[in-house]
Structures are given as C-alpha cells and as structure tokens.
C-alpha cells in the first residue's frame, strides 16, 4: 500500500512491534527500576567528589540532575541505532524494506522502547535526585523545556537513523555507541556551560549537538549561553539538515545493497 495510509499503517505496525517487544521482556522494567537509583548515585558522586560542597548547592544539584537526565535521554536514543544491524543480521531488514518501508520507519519500533526507557530511567533519576539528595527540582522556562525536548527527540531520532545506516554492517555496533553515548552529551552542553572555563565555553558552541543539548539544561537553569531564539533557530535548521542527510544516506545504502547484495557502507 502506498501513499499516506500506507505510511500510517507501516508506522503503526512498527509502534506495535516496539510495544510488543517491550512487554515481552518485563524483567527489563524491573531491573531498570532497581538499577537506575544506583547509577544516579554513581554519576552524581563521581562528578561531585571534586567539590563535595556542591552537594549542598541547590542550583548545582538542579543543574546536574538535568545534566544526567540529558545523558539518559541521549543514551536511550543512541542505543536504538544498534537495532538496524541486528535486523540486517537476522535477515529481517530486507523483508521490511520490500514492504515499502524505510529505515527511519523501521527504527520507530525500537524508538518506542527508547521512549519507555527514558520514561522509566528519567523519572527514577529525577525522583532519586529529589528524594535521595534533597534537590529542589525546578524548570526556569517550562515552555522552552518542552520545545527543547521535542526538538531533541526529533534530532536524536534522525541522528540514530543515520548512525544505524553507518553501523549496519558492523558485528559489534555497541562498541561505538558505548563511547558515543558519553562523548556526545558531556562534550556538547550537558554539563551546565556556566561552570566550564571560558575557553571551553567558547569552543563548545562549535559542536552541532550543543544547539540540541544546551537548550534542555538552559531551560531548566534559566542560563542561556546565546539568545534562545538563535539557539532554537540553529537547532531547528540542524534537525532539518539531518532529515535530508538521513534520506540521502538511506538511498545510498539501498543502492549499494542492490549492487553488492548486502547492507554496508564499508
């Protein structure tokens, strides 16, 4: 089926696939609920051991809570990109694409799991920060926070689909994701920019991820490094560029697959 109805039908099937997969592995939900409080504790203390007095600074605790929230956010989305390699290895991808679906659509099924992971992990993180560390969580600009989260979800969905296309032929794509999930957020604005030295502040704005990650932290703390309009405009343009880039890469991948008989860029 082609056209709008076909698109919606395939998207709904993918969403159903994601929800079914998640509900079959209920043990994941249980273990997430147990492990996230411990990881939260670990992250907080690993950073704040350098300056334990900040544990009593409400401003910094709030800022760092959102910093780790961004990490959970980025990590949840980035792990979905490994699912394409699994689909290719299991021989599913070829059949999915024969139905007229796209790689981006196929990843929707895995994105549902990312959203659920974020909902569980993010909520537990905020809860532990508030109850365990006594952080008074606050969002300086709730509207901008909502906008920043929507923009970040769109951006990292498209970024993950690009990453998935690039990593599709790797046997162990998790190796790349394991490193990238830390590097991307923590070098691009997840750490509140106002606590960084001026030289790093000036360098960090050259990272494209900054315009996606920084608005989340800045909406919570109220400290924007650049005017919000500029940041959201650049962030929006970057997201749009990623959309076109993901389409180009997907077409290239399919052309190569038809020529070589396997999904690979390398």
């Amino acid at each position: 089926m082609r056209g709008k109805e076909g698109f919606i039908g395939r998207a709904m099937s993918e969403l159903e696939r994601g929800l079914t997969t998640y509900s079959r592995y209920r043990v994941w939900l249980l273990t997430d609920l147990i492990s996230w409080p411990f990881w939260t504790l670990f992250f907080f203390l690993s950073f704040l051991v350098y300056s334990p007095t900040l544990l009593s600074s409400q401003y910094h605790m709030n800022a760092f809570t959102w910093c780790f929230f961004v990490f959970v956010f980025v990590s949840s989305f980035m792990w979905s990109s490994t699912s394409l390699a699994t689909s290719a290895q299991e021989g599913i991808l070829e059949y999915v694409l024969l139905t007229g679906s796209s790689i981006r659509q196929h990843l929707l099924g895995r994105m549902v799991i990312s959203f659920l992971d974020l909902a569980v992990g993010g909520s537990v993180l905020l809860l532990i920060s508030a109850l365990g560390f006594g952080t008074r969580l606050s969002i300086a600009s709730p509207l901008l926070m909502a906008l920043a989260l929507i923009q970040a979800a769109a951006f990292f969905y498209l970024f993950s689909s690009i990453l998935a296309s690039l990593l599709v032929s790797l046997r162990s794509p998790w190796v790349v994701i394991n490193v990238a999930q830390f590097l991307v957020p923590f070098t691009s604005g997840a750490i509140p920019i106002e606590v960084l030295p001026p030289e790093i502040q000036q360098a960090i704005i050259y990272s494209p991820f900054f315009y996606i990650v920084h608005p989340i932290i800045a909406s919570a703390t109220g400290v924007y490094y650049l005017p919000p309009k500029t940041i959201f405009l650049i962030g929006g343009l970057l997201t749009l560029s990623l959309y076109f880039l993901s389409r180009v890469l997907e077409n290239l991948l399919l052309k190569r697959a038809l020529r070589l008989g396997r999904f690979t860029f390398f």
Partner: protein
Amino acid sequence: MRSLNQLSGIVEAEFKVLRREAGIFLLIMSMPFMFSLLSYGVGIALTGGQAPPTLWFYQLIGFTVLVMAQVMSSSSAWYFRRGMMTGRLEYLLASPVSPLVAVFSSALANMAFNIAYFILVASIGVALVFGAQYLLNVLAVILFLGLALIPVVGFNLIVGVVTIIFREPEPVSNVINSIISSVSGFTYPLVLLPRFLQVVGTVLPYSHIVNTARDILSGAFQPASIYPFPFMVGYLILGVLVYRLGEVNYARKRGVHW
C-alpha cells in the same frame, strides 16, 4: 590431574577467543581514561582549576577496577547465555567435564585478561602522576590482583546461576553492575554514601581490592589493609555452593536449552 588438563585446555581456548577480539581490548583500555578524564574535566570546571591530579589517578584506578568487575560479571552472564543459546551448556552438563571446572577456567582466562589490562592502564597513570620510579609498584599489584580476584570468581558463579534462571544476561548483569559500581568506592570514598550502603560496600570485595591496589601503586601500602581478604574467600566458597545448588536443583532438572 584430569581436571587440571581440562582447566588448561579451556583456558587456552578462551585465550584464543580473546586474541581474536583485539579491538574490544583497545576499547576497554580506553574506557577508564575516557571516564576519568571526563570527570576530571568537570572537576577542573567545578573547582576553578584546583582539581588535584591525584584525584584523577584515584578515579582512573577506580574506573579500571570497575570495568574489570563489569567485564567479569558480564562475561560470566554471557558465557551461560551463549551456552544456552548454542546448546553447548546442555552438552557440557552431559559430558565428563565438570561444568564447574569449565566455568572456573573461563573466569580464570578473564582474570588474566583483566590483570593485563590493569597493568597497562595503571602503568600510564602511575608514570603520569607519581613518576616512572613508581612503576615497580605495578609488579606488586600483579601478585595482589592475582590473589584478590579469585574470590570474585565465586561472585561470578552466582551471576551465572542467576542467568540460567532468568535466561537474559543483560538485566541480571545490569542490576549487579549498578549496585557494585555505586557502593564499592571506585570513584569516590565510601564515606560519601549513606551509612547502610557503606556497609554493603564494605562487605563486597571490590572496595578492598581497589583501595589496596591504589595504596600499592602510590607507595602507601600498609600490611594491615589486607586483613579483609581472607574473609573474601567466603565468596568463592559461597559461589561454588550456590552454583552447585543451582546446577543440581535447577539446571539438571529443568534443562538449560533456550
């Protein structure tokens, strides 16, 4: 004698597998540097450039032992998962090779891999922070880790049995790793934790391993600090007991097919 032959044969096979995965070794080696430098960078930012390099070293060694702990528990979990998926575990239980010897051999190979990894990372850290004259201390750590990690094998046997019961290794290792990571004083002193978590951290073997390793490397080792290690042998005994109970009462009765 037969068990020894089996042990050496399996260790050799495991080393061959490890040798094929050189890329993973490089990645694992880079992880403590990546994490500790990231944290140190934040530390510099938070303290206005006053973060001491010794604290970076503290976290470097902590992250290294943390990765070792995670590799050991995840490897055990995956050893059982792969064994179940491929049917190897079923054959292993039916063969004259003791499954315990097989699992123990696999853990020993992992232990040797981890010690090699620790030596490389620690040597760089020691040379950078304390100077090349302290590099001899790394040799003492090899002996220490060789003995101190044996009780951890018992811990991993428990992970293995739990994997057989739950069948999914990731959730099992994720919970265990999160608890071990946060309460063992890898990257911050235990005193920063709530009291009950300090107790959990002290009972587990890792805080003693990481603290003693740091002391040996920095030349601050006191013989008194090894007093908890004889008690840690309890983990090995407990691990073997739990494993045997799981094998006899669960695995052999219900099967270990996927």
